[in-house]
């Protein structure tokens, strides 16, 4: 099949990743072989793709037995632009993403100004084109100014290139507004991604409500703050039929609600963050503010339930929940510190902990970071398939390393995996056939 490629009309050099371990999230199968990429698209896959079978002008990457998989799609990351360039920029966020094997970032709309106007969507897409290493797609605000009062211009924002609608890190408090937003989004077949926290019930809480909060003397956020919001949303989804994605579920009870909603055939999906899958409230230890997150890290029992729900497929997606915070907003008493942790660069390594612990198979894990988000967003990438965009990663699932915050690419260094031992590292990241990172 490669012998006919000699035509000088083909300006782009074929690229082949060979001698790898192909992990296909769609078929959940693994096999030895390689991937041939021409003009940014996967042209062939399989055991037949080897250095010997390719034309001499092809660029060949020998993967030395490493995993070849689709690049990750991160359904929620804060990229700083516009308005918070001191925390992160598209250039730094996408460098972190490339180093972490993330080839598509969905940017959160809680920027300044927020992404609630088609012109801001346009700005982000242009900035990403000019300064980004990986694909960036904006999630627009579900309500104007993220105020939770008036529906945003869903139709115009979709036309401009928004891929989903979310109120970022706040829940729409008013059920009437949420109902209308869902009904309106349904008309455009738009995806609504919602954060789950009843602001009244969460109150002044800063960490999971429980024994540890009691001992630390910190006000707690009850699990019900999440479940009540989720319950309400599911009822509104039942009434409106809108496509709904719970951004992060963090409790066992929420998992049960999602399981029931899916069993009832509702258009409901959910995600959880890499932090909630691999850490628990005990990691807060001595008031470590890098582990102050929203929703808060929960009890180990909740974490176990999340891992189980991920293996079952009740949880569809793992997100980085990348939220860069500068030192000044984190070096504060725990209750006064900002929420959030960076995660783009460490997401895959951290997730590999679940594989190494025997909790989940590698194809299943990868599906939650590639195929499932692609399906939910109706994107063509995230697949190891002929004709799919050549967004690919090569990673060694076993290589050990220690996370050194100074070496991370993000402009902010608030990683909860500071000094953590990891096993599994990205060696190469390719976006649309272009190598954007090489270890």
């Amino acid at each position, binding site marked *: 099949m490669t012998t006919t490629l000699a035509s000088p009309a083909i300006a782009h050099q074929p690229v082949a990743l060979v001698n790898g371990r192909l992990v296909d999230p769609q078929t959940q199968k693994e096999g030895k072989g390689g991937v041939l990429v021409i003009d940014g698209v996967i042209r062939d896959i399989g055991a037949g793709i080897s250095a010997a079978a390719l034309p001499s002008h092809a660029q060949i990457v020998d993967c030395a037995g490493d995993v070849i998989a689709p690049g990750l799609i991160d359904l929620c990351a804060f990229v700083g632009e516009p308005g918070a360039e001191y925390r992160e920029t598209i250039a730094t966020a996408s460098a972190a993403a490339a180093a972490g094997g993330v080839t598509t970032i969905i940017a959160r709309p809680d920027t300044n100004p927020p992404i609630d106007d088609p012109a801001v969507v346009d700005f982000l897409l242009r900035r990403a084109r000019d300064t980004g290493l990986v694909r960036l797609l904006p999630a627009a605000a579900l309500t*104007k100014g993220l105020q939770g*009062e*008036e*529906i*945003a*211009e*869903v*139709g*115009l924002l979709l036309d401009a290139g928004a891929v989903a609608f979310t109120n970022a890190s706040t829940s729409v408090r*008013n059920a*009437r*507004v949420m109902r*209308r937003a869902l*009904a*309106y989004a*349904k*008309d455009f077949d738009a995806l609504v991604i919602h954060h789950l926290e009843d602001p009244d019930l969460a109150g002044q809480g800063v960490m999971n409500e429980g024994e540890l909060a009691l001992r630390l003397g910190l006000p707690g956020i009850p699990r019900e703050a999440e479940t009540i919001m989720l319950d309400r949303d599911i009822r509104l989804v039942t009434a*409106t039929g809108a496509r709904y994605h719970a951004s992060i579920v963090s409790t066992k009870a929420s998992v049960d609600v999602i399981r029931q909603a899916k069993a009832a055939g509702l258009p409901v999906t959910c995600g959880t963050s890499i932090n909630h899958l691999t850490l628990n409230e005990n990691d807060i230890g001595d008031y470590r503010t890098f582990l102050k997150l929203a929703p808060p890290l929960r009890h180990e029992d909740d974490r176990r339930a999340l891992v189980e729900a991920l293996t079952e497929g009740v949880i569809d997606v793992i997100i980085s929940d990348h939220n860069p915070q500068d030192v000044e907003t984190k070096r504060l008493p725990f209750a006064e510190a900002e929420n959030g942790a960076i995660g783009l660069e460490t997401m895959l390594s951290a997730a590999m902990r679940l594989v190494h612990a025997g909790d989940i198979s590698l194809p299943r894990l990868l599906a939650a970071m590639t195929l499932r988000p692609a399906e939910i967003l109706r994107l063509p990438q995230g697949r190891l398939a002929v004709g799919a965009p050549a967004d690919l990663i090569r990673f060694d699932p076993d290589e050990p390393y220690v996370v050194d915050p100074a070496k991370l690419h993000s402009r902010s260094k608030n990683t909860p995996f500071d000094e953590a031992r990891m096993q599994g590292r990205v060696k190469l990241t390719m976006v649309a056939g272009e190598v954007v990172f090489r270890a």
Partner: protein
Amino acid sequence: MSEYRPAPRFPHRHLLGIEALSAKDIVTLLDMAEEAVGISRQVEKMRATLRGRTLINLFFEASTRTQSSFELAGKRLGADVMNMSVSTSSVKKGETLIDTAMTLNAMHPDIIVVRHAQAGAVHLLARKVDCSVVNAGDGAHEHPTQALLDALTIRRNKGRIEGLTVAICGDIFHSRVARSNILLLSRLGARVRVIGPSTLLPENMARLGVEIHRDMKTGLAGADIVMMLRLQRERMVGGFIPSSREYFRFFGLDSEKLSYAKEDALVMHPGPMNRGVEIDSTVADGPQSLIREQVEMGVAVRMAVLDALAQHLPNATGGERP
């Protein structure tokens, strides 16, 4: 009251809504209105049908065209017309609706035309007075004379109503015009569609026997009549739509969207229009627009309604009130 009177052609004492009218009643009113069109176009427009009668226009909600249309209709039929609007009435001083009704009733009017912001207010008033009552719009419930004038306009231009496809577009949720039109047009055998964003379509809309569309392209395909509704922004508590520009982009009637309908489709709007929000000026003032004719038919239909109700006035033969 015992002597012979010809059987009335219109068997209702009040006109509270289209709901209570049969197809025959509607056709009777349309036929009478057709005659009234002729009267209004003559130099001498006065008739004596309502001579000596008192008509009160009681408007709790501001109105220009409906109120003036009723006033003109009453005067052309020879009635004494009194206009009461909310700003001059004692309602502002705390009088209840029923007290107002009783007060007016004591003045022996023959017909009261009422508009009120609350659905059902006109029905309540009708139960408390001795005269005929015409609903000139109650909340989001009914606006029967608007539906009648729309039907008359359609019939004059298309020659029929039965079998036509009528698309009613926009703010269905707040619209009494939509409800009355749906009832009337379906009763006369038209196929009615409603088009709008889900936030402006009430739940269970399909129960009214209409086709529901959320996209102008599919909704207007094959339509004979495109009826635009006013976006009632003053009632938009809590944001039903994101913005006027988005609404215009997806639901505003411009030449492109109108081209989805039949080539000879006609455009209507009950007024007042928000130009550039639900309708583009090129369409509103274009050759397919019936909007000005609707206003003319408004006077004719109201003359017909007053005339029809006059057949039932208790002192029709000149005697004392019972």
